[in-house]
């Protein structure tokens, strides 16, 4: 298979991590609840497929049950390799996916993209807002880009890597890559970038994620030796973050603090202008290193204008009237008219990439400090009814922990709480409260969150649990539950699932996690298990370890239970080509889009 075909097939399988969901939210969602969208963000804006939807709706069915490919990993100690050309040797079960047609676009044209959040900075180092990625990714390339369904190394600035041993990685860089200002991307540049990322004074968003990197050596201009302080199999995910993309040293030294509004990367588009609060314009990088499958120079477009339109209805009015070519679909009411509009095409993102409904318990807080009662609570809640009533049956019921369905680590967790009144009653009796109990359920103030809470409330009533819904402002609910320990259960939403389970493990499950309301181990030994999973390079072993972690979280402790998973959607004007290869909508991979003449 040619380089290009390889890329396009792999492109379908690209991850949609929390960050990508953030980007999706940023494109599709009004900026009002931006902070919460990342932390416990609402995915309620995502829509059901309709007549206009082009992408398959069954992506979520892809699981570890698919045939396994041969693995060259031996106990995590043998050298591992990954290349863009061969598909890499980090073999994992491959989900059934639909191949993406080869893009063969026409060069030229300008595209208008509407997004919901203003950028806070165009310097990836401090890109703290979910809206920043939409603007920045057009101008930068990832150091590594991983196909998270397969863990193959995708096209990126690191062309090939070797795991020498669990603490030594060697990266071979793509030759001939230049920044927009003409300076070279080479090993010395990346070494400087890593120092910049790791300098605490720079307050880099990736600082914590990259803390396991001890140092980088540069034996030659195209080779990097990365030395880790301890084994960390999730390091690839950290290196693949937008906040860790390489930037031009020359430009940083030239502009200093003003680099955030004068970005220089290696990406498909170079910076044009940033009009505060209004838009960012990027222009074609004629010297971009990437070509499409037919050998045509990418990107196709001459210019992209990314306009900030906070209100999803206004975004939609703009795409209907033709002033915008592409936008996320950010409101439940818009998917149907989008599908019926003959001038629009609707593209579905990866199913299950965000969480529309999740139950989070404070396992120390009475009356739910009894695991049987937590299970009774969860078994009584009908996620299917919520899906059907609030989301028109277009979302899917969660079956695992916070791992994206179809991702390499995803697997159904047998026995996890699911709607079953008989089981709920059994656990109620086992918990010593056969007649039920009273409990306050905190929710944040959102129409869909409130609707689903009311449905759960009626479910719980059937087994004698009187759930008193406490509606709070999003900041208050988050603080009161996760920081102040004021409530026993939080019925909320979450910004995204992840292909790399270490993200949720460190963010939620560990004792010092930001979103662990107990601030102690969820279960003795869990933190060691999480550390072991992070330090294991053999992906099959990792998968088994994360299965154990999911079992602890969902079954043994019933601590953090996703109920309904959602799916993002975007709308394009009919004259926009290349949208077939757009499964992870919201990600500004603009180099593949083109305007049909």
């Amino acid at each position, binding site marked *: 298979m040619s380089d290009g075909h390889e890329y396009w097939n792999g492109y379908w399988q690209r991850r949609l991590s929390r960050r990508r969901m953030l980007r999706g939210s940023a494109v599709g969602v009004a900026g009002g609840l*931006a902070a919460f969208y990342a932390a416990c963000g609402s995915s309620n804006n995502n829509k059901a497929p309709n007549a206009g939807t082009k992408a398959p709706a069954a992506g979520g069915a892809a699981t570890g049950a698919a045939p396994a490919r041969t693995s060259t990993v031996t106990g995590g100690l043998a050298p591992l390799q990954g290349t863009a050309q061969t598909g890499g040797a980090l073999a994992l079960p491959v989900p059934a996916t639909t191949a993406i047609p080869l893009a063969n676009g026409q060069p030229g044209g300008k595209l208008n993209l509407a997004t919901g959040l203003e950028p*806070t900075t165009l310097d990836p180092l401090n890109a703290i807002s979910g809206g920043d990625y939409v603007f920045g990714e057009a101008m930068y390339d990832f150091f590594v880009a991983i196909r998270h369904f397969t863990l193959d190394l995708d096209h990126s600035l690191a062309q090939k890597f070797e795991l020498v041993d669990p603490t030594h990685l060697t990266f071979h860089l793509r030759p001939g890559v230049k920044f927009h200002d003409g300076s070279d991307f080479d090993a010395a540049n990346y070494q400087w970038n890593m120092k910049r990322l790791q300098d605490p004074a720079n307050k880099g968003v990736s600082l914590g994620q990259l803390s396991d990197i001890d140092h980088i050596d540069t034996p030659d201009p195209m080779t990097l030796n990365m030395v880790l302080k301890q084994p960390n199999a999730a390091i690839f995910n950290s290196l693949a973050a937008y906040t860790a993309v390489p930037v031009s040293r020359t430009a940083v030294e030239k502009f200093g603090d003003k680099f955030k509004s004068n970005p220089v990367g290696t990406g498909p588009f170079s910076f044009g202008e940033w009009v505060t609060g209004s838009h960012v314009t990027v222009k074609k990088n004629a010297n971009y290193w990437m070509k499409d499958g037919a050998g045509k120079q990418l990107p196709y477009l001459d210019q992209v204008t990314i306009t900030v339109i906070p209100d999803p209805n206004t975004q939609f009015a703009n795409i209907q009237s033709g002033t915008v070519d592409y936008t996320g679909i950010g409101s439940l009411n818009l998917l149907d008219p989008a599908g019926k509009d003959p001038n629009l095409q609707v593209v579905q993102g990866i199913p299950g990439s965000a969480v529309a409904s999740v139950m989070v318990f404070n396992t120390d807080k009475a009356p739910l400090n009894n695991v049987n009662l937590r299970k009774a609570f969860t078994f009584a809640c009908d996620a299917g009814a919520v899906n059907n009533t609030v989301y028109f049956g277009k979302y899917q019921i969660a079956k695992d922990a916070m791992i994206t369905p179809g991702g390499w680590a995803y697997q159904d967790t047998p026995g996890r709480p699911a709607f079953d009144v008989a089981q709920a009653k059994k656990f109620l009796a086992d918990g010593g409260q056969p007649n039920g109990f009273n409990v306050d359920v905190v929710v944040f103030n959102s129409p869909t969150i409130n609707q689903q809470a009311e449905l759960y409330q009626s479910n719980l009533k059937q087994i004698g649990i009187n759930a008193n819904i406490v509606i709070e402002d999003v900041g208050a609910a988050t603080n009161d539950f996760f920081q102040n320990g004021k409530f026993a259960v939080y019925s909320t939403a979450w910004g995204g699932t992840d292909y790399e389970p270490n993200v949720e493990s460190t963010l939620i499950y560990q004792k010092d996690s930001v979103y662990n309301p107990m601030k102690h181990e969820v279960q003795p030994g869990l933190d060691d298990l999480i550390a072991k999973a992070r330090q294991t390079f053999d992906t099959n072993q990792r998968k088994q370890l994360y299965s154990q972690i999911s079992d602890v979280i969902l079954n043994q402790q019933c601590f953090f239970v996703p109920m309904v998973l959602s799916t993002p959607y975007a709308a394009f004007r009919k004259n926009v080509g290349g949208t077939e290869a757009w499964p992870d909508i919201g990600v500004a991979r603009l180099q593949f889009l083109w305007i049909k003449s």
Partner: protein
Amino acid sequence: MQTYIARRLLQAIPVLLLITFLVFFLEQLIPGDPVYALIGSSGGQELAPSVIRQYRKEFHLDDPIPVQYAIWLQHALHGDFGKSIKSQRPVTEELRARIPVTLQLGLAALIIGIVVSFPLGITAALFRNSLLDRAITVFSIAAVSIPGFFLAILLIILFAVKLRWLPASGFTEVTTNPVKAIKLLILPAFVLSSGSIGGLTRFVRSSLLEVLRADYVRTARAKGLPGTRVIWLHALKNAMLPVSTIIGLQIGFLLAGALIIEQIFAIPGIGRYVIQGFTDKDFPVVQGYVLLVATCILVTSLLTDLIYSVLDPRIRFR
């Protein structure tokens, strides 16, 4: 006059201090932590504890609230509103970039408000209790009653999506592209002025009716002056005195309304900026906005009083 102006300006100082003080403390009552908001928006897991500590230190978030206020005030007195916690960009710069945008919108809304409401109010007064008067009354009440966000959506659907006469959203400076700027301003400015139109129409009507009943108007008519001359030179000029006060007060309403309108019409003004500031609990942004708007309203109030003396020579300031 100068003494009066100086006294009013001096009086404004404690008012501004009180407003910023109240807003600062009320802000603290809003649950949530700005750094927590940062963690959320960054995806949480990436922010290292050392970075969080730096944020807390840099923005004095661990200091007592009065100390935080004193630090903010000290900088504000030097024209420095601090940096946005989220974007790390100077609030003063951000506000400076966005003030002309909101001014352009507000001015357009004010012009539309006056241009529409004055003829309607005068017509309603002159044809009191007629069908026309009742129709104008219904229009005025509807203009005041319909929420701006709802009217905005309706107008966008009608004029941008269905008829395609006007763009749905966006902003351009008048100096850059006047035609485009005016097209982009029509819908938001009209929606923003809708409340003013309703209120001003009613006020012009009642003010004019009152004056039309005055003795000097009757005298003018008895002298045989033409009706138009009586209305324009005698009645309307006097009727405008209370109306000018109301117009001055509209500035505050327009600035408040801009918060919603800028959000819906994607106008990069100070209203949209502060909404994001509220969401992120970004108190330097909110404080900067409050001080700016409070100053605007106080200055407008002073100007209104001064205009009074121009319109009515009987008024003298001491």
